[in-house]
């Protein structure tokens, strides 16, 4: 038990992301309402984005905006600056998530216009009629 507690404290960030991901995943597969499914997907994406950004952290590292002339003259120690690569990847992932949310909301509005409801089982009923 003591070892497990230490494990949790040392890697608490992963526990937060996994719990967030579980919330999103449950909303995606357990809920019947399509808007709730979409919200679950957004929570899932947030968990993934947080996970990626946290992989770039270096303890004691500075922000990846450097002093141009100092770096040109003296160079820089990479362990003193946090990893910029996950930031770039997640910047693009956020934009994709906005696009996906927009398209999904549009499709949901279209479904509501066709069937008059956003509940999954009611839509399936109306399709089978």
């Amino acid at each position: 038990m003591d070892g497990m507690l230490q494990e949790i404290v040392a890697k608490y960030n992963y526990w937060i992301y996994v719990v967030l991901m579980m919330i999103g995943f449950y909303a995606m597969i357990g809920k019947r309402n399509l808007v709730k499914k979409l919200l679950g997907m957004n929570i899932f994406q947030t968990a993934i984005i947080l996970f990626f950004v946290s992989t770039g952290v270096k303890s004691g590292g500075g922000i990846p905006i450097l002093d141009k002339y100092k770096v040109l003259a003296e160079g820089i120690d990479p362990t003193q600056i946090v990893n910029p690569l996950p930031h770039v990847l997640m910047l693009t992932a956020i934009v994709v998530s906005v696009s996906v949310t927009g398209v999904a909301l549009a499709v949901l509005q279209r479904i509501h216009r066709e069937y008059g409801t956003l509940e999954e089982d009611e839509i399936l009923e109306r399709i089978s009629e």
Partner: protein
Amino acid sequence: MKRRLERAGGQQLGDSSIIKTSVRLLVPFVQLFGLYVIVHGHYSPGGGFQGGVALGASFILLALAYDLKTSIRHFSEGANALLANTGALIYTGVAALCAVMGGLFLDYSALDKLIPLGPIEWRSFGIFLVEVGVGLAVMSIMVSLFWDISSGGEMDEGL
């Protein structure tokens, strides 16, 4: 539409002179900040995506405080489509121009043959050109997403 009017007591939601006046004062500063974020992306946190979203948010704010027609009057549908296309075209155009000038696709240092600034300065300036394209595209697409989704494609009255 009817339910919303009832809830607001016969008055349209957001039809308050405090909100309207403060938004009218705020929108130019939001736009200025968006331009600053795009242009200053080399030296501070920022860039095309963030600045584009800030610029788009200013028009969305206008549409929320007044109504959708007002924001369309300030930023017409034609201009919106034109700017979205221009933004995507600036990016791909700069990239293709690099290839035409004899470098690799997206290798901005090849543009040195066009205006001699030095290959490394051109890489810095090429990033700036590309960010402007991204900002334009993101701004217009954000505004058009809001218009379409909030009005259900009717483009007459939004939230």
